[in-house]
């Protein structure tokens, strides 16, 4: 890949927001300083401290025949379609990947159904056919599935959740796909609609202002929720030039990490945020004086704004005095999963058009946020380089650097693009199942784990075990070491898969809400209902400060996490990532959702999961880690009806007689994918083989099978293994070799 091909260009932006259902409508009203925040009309907000939001007035209806659908999916579709149009990109003709960030999925349409299903004496009898149909829109992955139906085909599809940085992380992951050459274009972004659950939850936390929010203002009293969809098209410069499309801007650099501080509060010192700002700039080859605009996370909560100001000061130094800063949340509200993508899109437009988005809601700057604030109307200014920040719940933070498309040196950052992805190895493994679940829970420090629900607790214990196996942390019971600071694992993060998130928890929360009213909604329970929460809790408990996020892809959620981790490591975004999945017991998954998605006749569902520690080969070598296995390649695909939409270039086994195929489940899709491959000649196993692996039947099985594959290689029973995991219409494959 030449240096010219190496730049990642943003070639399309689509926005559907409270200011307008198109990019230009949103941009025009944004630059005029307008905001559309008013009483929520989607549901009753009686009795709540704050009753306003930036609701999208016109959400384009999906085409007929696509019911049931969710509002989140509609917001995603409108903006994704617009981005494709802007880029003149047809996924039918160009190999395109899709990455979606979201925190609510179909929660608005399903929260009440789930609450009554939980209340039903036997959830199996609960929802009627119509309600069951609606439930198909519930999982986070359903948003991407809707986009596949409406805008596809896509070569690969991934759904991410990292709270308020979800949309930004979708951009980062898509960029790694381009760098690795997996696809020629990516459609990346995020969407979230309002829901009773999120609205009452933020109210219960006291995080919502009773009136329209005031980012950086000394009188600010919290955030204003918004909703929206925002998608960008990214492609390598070389591809875009070949297609003859004009770029909007360049995605020049990025950094992901976690604070490991608290599940809802940011670290007031902003240490991790400052580090990420510095890393993103370094990767872009940009020095602070070159930055001419910062689009802040700027939620207007009491805690975020000064933390962000401090982080900007620490990272940019005296240059900050000359850099205008504004938060678009003063106009668009906090759009959760869409925010990171929405604000990146606005930043790209700012760079393209030489205009700075205003800072609305700010009248009396807080002295603790000593920044050069943009005024209440957009202004003209050349922006060769800009920053876009996204700092999520649980401290999951991402910084993006956006640059003028034709600016910057034509020399690559010292990234892996010229060399191919960095090699990745497995340095630790762990599984957890019904037999040892209670023991795992008991091994946690009760005081520090008290806020964690069962899923988060089991996930934390599982991740801790994997890290111990990798020699990256001391005994769990050592509270002082567990305090996190001693580990200093800035380079180690976590990618956890979950099919449905804490659906029982969400249902119980809504049940309580409907029965007792919003004042009695639990502020401590609410954060646990974001699907990224187990990963967030684990990162806080264990002091993991690398990239932290959740993935969701039905029963292939663990496989999605593993492949995502390999992609991020390959791109140099972390030194190590614990990757896997953990599925706790769930009345609703067992009673309702399992049947809705997997069909009746599925084996009785168990509880459990698996996790592995993946590191770059360099990191493992540097610390003298024992290598269990090498990751040769990782693939993801969507099925186009006659096999993968884009054929996989699976490396053939070096020696079929010492190679094996491990399939997570018996399914015709996996079969079809392998049919013409040299791996078809290798001995094949389905599911978990060793009875001691303590795995049950659940959506995290893929992670458990992966751990088993590593064990087989370590014991010398095979020299290469292909692991294949699928769910309806999608699949993942990883090739491992003996150390």
């Amino acid at each position, binding site marked *: 890949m030449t240096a010219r091909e190496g730049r990642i260009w943003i070639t399309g932006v689509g926005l559907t927001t409270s200011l307008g259902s198109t990019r230009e409508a949103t941009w025009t009203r944004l630059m005029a300083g307008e905001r559309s925040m008013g009483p929520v009309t989607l549901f009753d907000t009686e009795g709540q401290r704050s009753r306003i939001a930036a609701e999208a007035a016109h959400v384009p209806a999906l085409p007929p025949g696509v019911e049931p659908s969710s509002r989140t999916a509609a917001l995603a579709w409108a903006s994704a379609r617009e981005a494709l149009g802007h880029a003149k990109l047809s996924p039918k003709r160009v190999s395109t990947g899709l990455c979606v960030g979201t925190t609510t999925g179909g929660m608005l349409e399903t929260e009440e159904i789930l609450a009554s299903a939980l209340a039903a004496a036997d959830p199996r009898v609960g929802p009627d056919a119509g309600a069951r149909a609606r439930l198909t829109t519930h999982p986070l992955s359903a948003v991407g599935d809707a986009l596949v139906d409406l805008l596809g085909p896509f070569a690969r599809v991934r759904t991410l959740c990292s709270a308020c940085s979800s949309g930004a992380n979708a951009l980062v992951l898509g960029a790694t796909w381009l760098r690795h050459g997996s696809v020629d274009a990516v459609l990346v972004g995020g969407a979230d609609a309002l829901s009773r659950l999120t609205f009452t939850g933020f109210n*219960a*936390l*006291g995080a919502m202002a009773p009136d329209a929010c005031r980012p950086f203002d000394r009188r600010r009293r919290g955030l204003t929720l918004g909703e929206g969809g925002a998608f960008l098209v990214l492609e390598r410069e070389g591809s875009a030039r070949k297609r003859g499309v004009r770029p909007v801007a360049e995605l020049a650099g990025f950094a992901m990490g976690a604070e490991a501080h*608290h*599940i*809802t*509060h940011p670290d007031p010192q902003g240490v991790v945020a400052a580090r990420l700002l510095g890393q993103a700039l370094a990767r872009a080859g940009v020095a602070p004086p070159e930055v001419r605009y910062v689009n802040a996370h700027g939620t207007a909560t009491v805690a975020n704004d000064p933390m962000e100001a401090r982080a900007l000061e620490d990272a940019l130094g005296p240059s900050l005095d000359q850099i205008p800063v504004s938060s678009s949340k003063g106009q668009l509200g906090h759009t959760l999963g869409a925010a990171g993508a929405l604000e990146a899109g606005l930043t790209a437009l700012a760079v393209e058009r030489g205009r700075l988005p205003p800072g609305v809601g700010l009248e009396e700057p807080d002295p603790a946020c000593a920044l050069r604030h943009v005024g209440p109307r957009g202004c003209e200014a050349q922006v060769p380089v800009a920053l876009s920040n996204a700092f999520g719940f649980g401290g999951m933070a991402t910084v993006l650097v956006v640059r003028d498309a034709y600016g910057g040196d034509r020399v690559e950052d010292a990234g892996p693009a010229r060399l191919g992805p960095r090699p990745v190895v497995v340095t630790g493994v762990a599984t957890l199942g019904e037999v040892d679940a209670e023991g795992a829970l008991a091994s946690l420090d*009760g*005081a520090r784990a*008290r*806020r964690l629900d069962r899923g988060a607790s089991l996930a934390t214990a599982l991740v801790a075990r994997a890290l111990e196996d990798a020699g990256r942390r001391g005994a769990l019971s050592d509270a002082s070491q567990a305090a996190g600071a001693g580990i200093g694992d800035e380079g180690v993060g976590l990618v956890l898969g979950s099919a449905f998130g804490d659906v029982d928890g969400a249902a119980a929360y809504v049940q309580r809400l409907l029965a*007792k009213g919003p*004042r*009695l*909604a*639990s*502020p*401590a329970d609410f954060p646990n209902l974001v699907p990224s929460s187990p990963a967030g809790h684990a990162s806080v408990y264990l002091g993991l400060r690398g990239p932290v996020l959740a993935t969701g892809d039905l029963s292939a959620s663990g496989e999605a996490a593993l492949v995502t981790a390999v992609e991020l490591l390959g791109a140099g975004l972390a030194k190590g990532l614990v990757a896997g999945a953990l599925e706790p017991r769930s009345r609703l998954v067992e009673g309702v959702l399992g049947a809705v998605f997997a069909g009746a006749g599925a084996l009785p569902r168990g509880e459990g999961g698996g996790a592995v520690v993946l590191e770059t080969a360099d990191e493992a070598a540097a610390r003298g880690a024992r290598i269990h296995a090498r990751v040769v390649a990782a693939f993801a695909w969507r099925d186009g009806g006659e096999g993968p939409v884009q054929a996989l270039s699976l490396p053939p086994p070096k020696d079929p007689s010492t190679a094996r195929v491990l399939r997570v489940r018996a399914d015709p899709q996996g079969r079809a994918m392998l049919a013409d491959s040299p791996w078809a000649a290798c001995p094949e196993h389905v599911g978990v083989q060793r009875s001691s692996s303590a795995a049950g039947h659940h959506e995290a099985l893929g992670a458990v099978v992966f751990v088993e594959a590593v064990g087989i290689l370590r014991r010398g029973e095979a020299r290469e293994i292909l692991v294949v995991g699928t769910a309806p219409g999608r699949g993942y494959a990883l090739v491992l070799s003996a150390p």
Partner: protein
Amino acid sequence: MTASSTELRAELKALLVSALNLRGRDPASIDDDAPLFGAAAEGQAKGLGLDSLDALELAMAVEERFGVRLPEGEDARFVYRSVATLADYVAGAAMQGNGPGPPGPR
């Protein structure tokens, strides 16, 4: 200030343990005057080390259990200081709600 009864303080201690999931903590072991939030000062009984998320959850639990709305913001600092101050506030508010009686805490 209305003095709260031993029973009320015991109920509040039990509520603290259950609402905040202070697993394994015996409610009776919580000192009436121990600081609930932040670190204990020298010479003070060891505190519970709760944080602001706990304060929100506790306020919700107290409202649900006793029908008393705890104050917010600066007014809240004194009330949340210890089990004793919290219990006194609840007792006072409950008495106010039940008709004429001694004035409640400010």
